């Protein structure tokens, strides 16, 4: 769970930047590695080909040398002189010396023509020894015939024998490194036979191999068919076993390619074999032959790093550009949540975010329209309700009053009929009053006077009344027909059931910017519980049988707002006072 939370980011911006970064890191790493690997393997391939060609070339050169030596050997052994010298019973004789001198001259001319020949030597079966040196100091004959090149030629049956590289020690105080090419002339043991040897200066081969550059550490070495080293740059290390070459596997290799070692010491052996059975082995270290491997790696790393940096910057910028408009939209939406519909998003782009913003604008516009419509409808509804309420008051009262007039007419009380009818006419005039909602308090007073006149005639002896209004407030505006229900209430609920004559008192005064009208009776009054019940009824605006007071309360509140309305004070057996409050609004004629 904790791990999952790690990857849950609060903003699109962060997740996008992170996703992009991961992608870029991945791709960059992959590409870098791949390009490095490809170029490295290409370089390795090239190195292989190059090494192969070099080895082949060295091999060809050595082959040429050995061929040349063989043909020189053939040339030197071609004359009959050698056979004649070897046939002499005593080579030390005068004739032998003469022949030897002539042969020596011939040998000398051959050796002088070529720098790579160290010496040419003939050893006859009769003990004759002749070389290209005019006055050579030879080792004892037994030493010479015990040497490998001599035995090799004797055992190879007329074919050319090629020795491994060795120190030639036929002459005293001369120890050159050579490769000896020796050949038996005639049949071994027969008179006139002998061994002819041509020494190839090993330096020729050394230089040839040394010149070959196979990278920093690579080298070339040569093996003879027996697996002995003819040339190796580290021959001494091999002999002292500080190093080793796996010679058996080189000799047995069929493909001519071998790899040894690991990592930095991985070596590639390229083997070429010539006609004489010599193996020219090129050793390369692929690790470094890919010469610029490190450089490739570094370039790849650097490029990768740069791409990474640029990619990261771009991803951050891009995600910022994408996420920012969304953030702005979110911010505006918060405002809308709080009720501010006067908001528009400035749309510049045409992308999805732009479309979203446009839709947002449209939506907000629609909501705003709807809200206005609702407000208007509510207003309409209120007005019609008010009108309906006003209308409700009239008929009931009218029927009762008309009934009273009829009754009085039948009784012949013409005086009262006139008064009542006059009052009724006044009452209606006042209540119609051009349909305006608000009327001066004076008009309302007129109206209530007419009403009281009528009621007083109807309930004669039931109550008396007095009206005491501050003259200042007469011109102020009030909602029309608000007093009548209060008075009606006082008559019907406060006084009607009482046996004694009740008293209704209407007062009015200005107080701190509001007008307070009180309608008091000295009737039955109410208990505290009844007052609370009635107050609750007023608040809720519930409809019910006693519609008068809640109706007035509601109308005042709808017109003037919350703090205004009715308040009831009452004591049982003492009477009830209903207080009506509304703001002071000066009427037209007031000034």
């Amino acid at each position, binding site marked *: 769970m904790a791990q999952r939370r790690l990857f849950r980011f609060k903003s699109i911006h962060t997740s996008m930047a992170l996703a992009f970064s991961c992608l870029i890191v991945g791709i960059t790493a992959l590409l870098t590695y791949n390009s490095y690997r490809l170029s490295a393997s290409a370089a390795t391939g090239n190195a292989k080909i190059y090494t192969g060609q070099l080895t082949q070339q060295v091999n060809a050169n050595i082959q040429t040398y050995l061929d040349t030596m063989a043909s020189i050997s053939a040339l030197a052994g071609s004359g009959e002189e050698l056979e004649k010298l070897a046939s002499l019973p005593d080579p030390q004789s005068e004739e032998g010396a003469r022949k030897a001198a002539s042969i020596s001259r011939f040998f000398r001319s051959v050796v002088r023509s070529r720098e790579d020949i160290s010496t040419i030597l003939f050893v006859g079966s009769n003990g004759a020894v002749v070389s290209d040196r005019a006055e050579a100091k030879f080792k004892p004959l037994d030493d010479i015939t015990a040497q490998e090149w001599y035995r090799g030629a004797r055992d190879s049956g007329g074919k050319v024998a090629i020795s491994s590289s060795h120190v030639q020690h036929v002459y005293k105080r001369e120890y050159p490194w050579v490769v000896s090419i020796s050949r038996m002339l005639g049949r071994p043991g027969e008179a006139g036979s002998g061994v002819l040897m041509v020494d190839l200066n090993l330096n020729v081969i050394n230089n040839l191999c040394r010149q070959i550059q196979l990278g920093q550490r690579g080298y070339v070495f040569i093996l003879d068919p027996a697996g002995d080293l003819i040339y190796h740059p580290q021959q001494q*290390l091999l002999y002292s076993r500080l190093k080793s070459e796996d010679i058996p596997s080189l000799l047995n290799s069929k493909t001519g390619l071998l790899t040894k070692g690991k990592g930095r010491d991985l070596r590639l052996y390229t083997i070429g074999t010539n006609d004489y059975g010599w193996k020219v082995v090129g050793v390369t270290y692929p690790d470094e032959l890919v010469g610029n491997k490190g450089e490739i790696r570094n370039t790849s790393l650097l490029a990768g790093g740069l791409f990474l940096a640029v990619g990261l910057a771009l991803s951050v910028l891009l995600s910022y550009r994408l996420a920012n408009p969304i953030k702005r939209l979110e911010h505006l939406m918060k405002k809308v949540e709080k009720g501010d519909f006067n908001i528009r998003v400035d749309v510049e782009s045409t992308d999805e975010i732009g479309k979203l913003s446009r839709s947002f604008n449209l939506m907000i516009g629609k909501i705003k329209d709807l809200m206005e419509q609702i407000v208007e409808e509510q207003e309409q509804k209120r007005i019609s309700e008010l009108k309906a309420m006003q209308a409700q008051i009239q008929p009931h009262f009218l029927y009762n009053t008309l009934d009273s007039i009829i009754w009085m007419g039948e009784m012949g009380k013409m005086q009262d009929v006139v008064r009542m009818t006059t009052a009724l006419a006044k009452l209606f005039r006042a209540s119609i009053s051009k349909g305006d909602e608000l009327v001066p308090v004076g008009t309302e007073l007129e109206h209530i006077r007419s009403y009281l006149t009528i009621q007083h005639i109807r309930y004669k002896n039931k109550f008396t009344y007095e009206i005491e209004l501050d003259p200042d407030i007469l011109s102020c505006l009030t909602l029309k027909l608000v007093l009548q229900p209060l008075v009606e209430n006082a008559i019907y609920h406060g006084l009607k059931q009482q046996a004694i004559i009740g008293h209704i008192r209407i007062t009015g005064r200005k107080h701190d910017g509001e007008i307070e009208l009180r309608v008091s009776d000295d009737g039955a009054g109410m208990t505290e519980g009844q007052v609370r019940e009635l107050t609750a009824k007023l608040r809720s605006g519930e409809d019910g049988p006693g519609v008068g007071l809640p109706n007035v309360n509601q109308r005042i509140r709808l017109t003037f707002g919350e703090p205004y309305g009715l308040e009831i004070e009452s004591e049982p057996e003492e009477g009830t006072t209903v207080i009506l409050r509304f703001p002071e609004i000066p009427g037209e004629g007031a000034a």
Partner: protein
Amino acid sequence: MRRTFGWIAAALLVVLAAWKLYESISPRAEQQKPLLFVPKTVDGRSDFWRVLGMGVQTAAKEFGVQVQTVGTVAETDVDGQIALLERAIEERPRAIVLAASDYNRVVPVAKRIQAAGIPLITVDAGLNGGIAASFVATDNYEAGRKAGEAALRLLPQDATIAVVSFVKGTATSMERERGVRERLAEAPGVNVLEETYFSDGSIDKAYRIVSRLLRERPDIQGFVCLNEPTTTGAAKALQESGRAGEVKLVGFDSSTDEIDYLEADVIQAIVVQNPFNMGYLAVRAAVDAARGKRTEPVIDTGSEVITKQNLYNKENQKLLFPFDDPD
């Protein structure tokens, strides 16, 4: 926008870190500095130092280091070598391979090399106190024992043997002599002359000493000579006395003269060192030391006993007849 900059800065930091890492693992920086090789002599006529130099070059190529060789012409120019080393400290080579021309006098400058943090390897000739990271040389005591062993094989059990050394007081001569004498002492019947003779590294002096001994002490049946000129001088004296072969001679090191005498049976055995390996192993040790690897305090490059019989063995040919290096 501030966060964006933060990201870019972080990315740049990553790149920078990668670059630093690459530089630190790149071997190029350390390879640019050469390794300094200071032989006892840069005189090309000395086979021993020429072959040792070949070993140095072979190793240099193999380990991919550059080697700069500086040295005095004369082996005895101790002050010259000290001055060279003083200069070398300022150039701060990657490591120094030194063949000290004096066992004691070179020690102070070697200590300064160490204090400068430059790895020091001594080759062939070491320093008093063994302050180098590695000392690559022939185990001369062991070589002396081999010489004694060869003499014992050549001589009867009650033979009288003389030891002719070269320069009195050098570590090499003392070690070789100790080896010879200790090995001979293990054969109860053998009589070794108490006195050690010193040729001072001169063929002539060795010749005179041996000639005199042959005259004065006809009972001597064998000589053990502890370096090349001494052996050559002794061989010359023996040959002229006409008692070559009868009086046995075991020598040290190789030269054309010695090989001639060996082939002529004047010398019966020589103990040879392996200077090529010495140079090679010294550079290998130096490269290791420069890379902070632990190195063996003493590396023995071994010695071989050469007789007429094994003179032309493949292995010994290389040891006795080094290739001429075209460089």
